Every structure is written in C-alpha cells, then in structure tokens.
C-alpha cells in the first residue's frame, strides 16, 4: 500500500504552485497513520549574499527517518530585486538499494527532484526591506538520507541576508533501531 503511495507522489517539485496538493488528505493521513513516529523538521539554509557569486549549501536528512517535504520558504532582509535572485532546490537520495545500506559511492546518488524558482517575495511595511515567499501544502515523500542542496544566484541587487527553509516531517516506519 505504502509503495503505491510513494510512486504516486514521486512527482517533481517543478512548477510548484502555492496551495497545490500532491496527495489527497486521505492518502496523507494513511502514511502518517501507519508511521511509528512522526516529528517536525526544518532544514534551514542561512546565507550572507554578497556580490554576484552563486552560493550553494547542502544538508543531509536523518538516516532511517523518511523525510516528507511539506513546504519551501524564502526570506531576504534587504532585497532590491530589480532583477530577482533565483533559488535552486535539489533533492538527492543517498539511501542505497543494495545490501550495503548507506554506503554507496556519491556518484550513485539518485536525483529525486530539483527545481529553480525566481524569488521576488512579498514586501510588508512591518519589516521594511524584507521579502518573503512561501510554497506550502506540499506533501512530497522523499526518502531517508536525502541530500538537500539549496543554491542562491543573486540578481542585480544589494547585499542581503537570506534564509531558505525546506520544511516537513520525518516519519519513522519501524526497524531495528532509531
């Protein structure tokens, strides 16, 4: 049962639209219901964006806990986005399908999905200069030990602090240890 759900939701995160549901509520509930443990997890990428250099950073999700991406959000504190920066998000699985679990060479990584999003952001008067943008209501079941790589290519703009959150839940489906 879970496998068919996984197949259904292994859809690329390209062309994400806010509010788009990848799975029905019932399908999501089924996965969460069957999980032995569920916990919240944010992968946060903080950047000091200066000049025109593209920056890239990678975090690896927890071993033996499957990561479900439920949203991506961006923030910049001093953005003059005449030409907005672009933010790239890539998910690569490190989990092995071989008996040598967690030990395959890096070149064996499977790219699960990747996308590049122009970041313009919403302004507000409460935090002048700050821009915010969020893609939520996703439910992309990824894998355990997923490499999340976020890159920022600055546009024509000022220097700024930026943060990108890849938010979601981790589910533990059972096994010999946690």
């Amino acid at each position: 049962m879970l496998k068919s759900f996984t197949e259904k939701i292994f859809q690329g995160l390209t062309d994400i639209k806010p509010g788009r549901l990848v799975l029905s509520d019932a399908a999501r509930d089924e996965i969460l219901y069957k999980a032995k443990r569920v916990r919240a997890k944010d992968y946060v990428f903080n950047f000091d964006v200066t000049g025109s250099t593209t920056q890239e950073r990678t975090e690896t999700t927890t071993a033996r806990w499957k990561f479900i991406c439920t949203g991506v959000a961006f923030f910049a504190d001093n953005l003059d986005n005449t030409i907005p920066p672009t933010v790239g998000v890539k998910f690569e699985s490190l989990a092995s399908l071989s008996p040598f679990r967690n030990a395959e060479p890096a070149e064996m990584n499977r790219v699960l999905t990747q996308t590049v999003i122009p970041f313009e952001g919403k302004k507000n008067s409460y935090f002048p200069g700050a821009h915010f943008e969020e893609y939520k209501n996703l439910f992309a079941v990824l894998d355990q030990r997923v490499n999340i790589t976020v890159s920022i290519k600055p546009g024509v703009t000022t220097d700024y602090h930026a943060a990108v959150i890849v938010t979601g839940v981790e589910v533990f489906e059972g096994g010999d240890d946690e």
Partner: protein
Amino acid sequence: MASMAEINAKVAGLKQSQAYEKTFDFTRTFVAKANTAGEFAIPITNEGPFLQESYNIRCTANSKVDYGGGSVSYCGVKLKFKSQADNAAMSNDYIPVQLIGTPGSTDGTRYGARPFMHIYPKGDVLIVEYDNRAPAAIAGETYVMADERVDICFNGKLYPMG
C-alpha cells in the same frame, strides 16, 4: 437507557484508547533581551499526547537597522525548537522570525499559522532557543538591537488520557 456506570465505563474506555480528541492551543510570550541568546522550556499539558499541527508567531520590531538611508524597524530574533522527549532539534539551524512569523502591524501582510506537525508524548517539554544578537553586517549596515516581545501560539489537538 444506559446507566451512569455504563456511561462512565464508556468514557473511561475512550480516554484509555485515545479515541477522542479536542482542539487545543497553547501560547507562550517571552521577551528576547537585546544582544542575548538563551533558551527556556514549555511543559506541555499532562492531559495526554499533543499533536501540534501549526504555530503562529508574532514579534515586535523594536530594533533598528540603517543601510545608509536612515534607520528602519527591524526584528533580528531567531528561533529553534526542540522536543525534550525526542531529544532532536526541529531545525538544523536558527530560523529568522521574519521568515516564520506574522508581522504585527495592521497593514502588514499576514502570513498566518505555519503548518508544522509534531507529536509530543504525554508530559513532554518543548524547548525554545532564541537568539537576539545582531547579524554580521554585510552591506555596511548598522544595527541597534532592542528587547523584542515574542508571542507564539501552537495549534493542534490533544488526546486526553485517563
């Protein structure tokens, strides 16, 4: 008609089985002192497990930043959450409250509650770490940090037991 004993037995059974739930919000307000970092613990209700579905954060913007054109309001508070029972941080780094919070002014864009699901076992404690120190200046800007009031409302469901 069921007797009171039967009704009581039924209610007790429901409680033991976690077969009923009630919506539950718990809130916390604290002051992040200027130029300090710290943490505090929020005991979650002992009634039963709590399913957190989202949280909503509001923060004052008393600090100032000046990029050269005069100072403007700024909020530099960063937050990190951790469940004591799970002993794992819910983020790998501090998150700027400007990214996860709802601006407090009436004309600000309201982001609303942010989905964030976590199941806390009965008796768990939520640990909130905060940092209200100025970031490194990267555009020649200057910061004047001030105390900030942070309001957090955790929304979810409670499963009372016994």
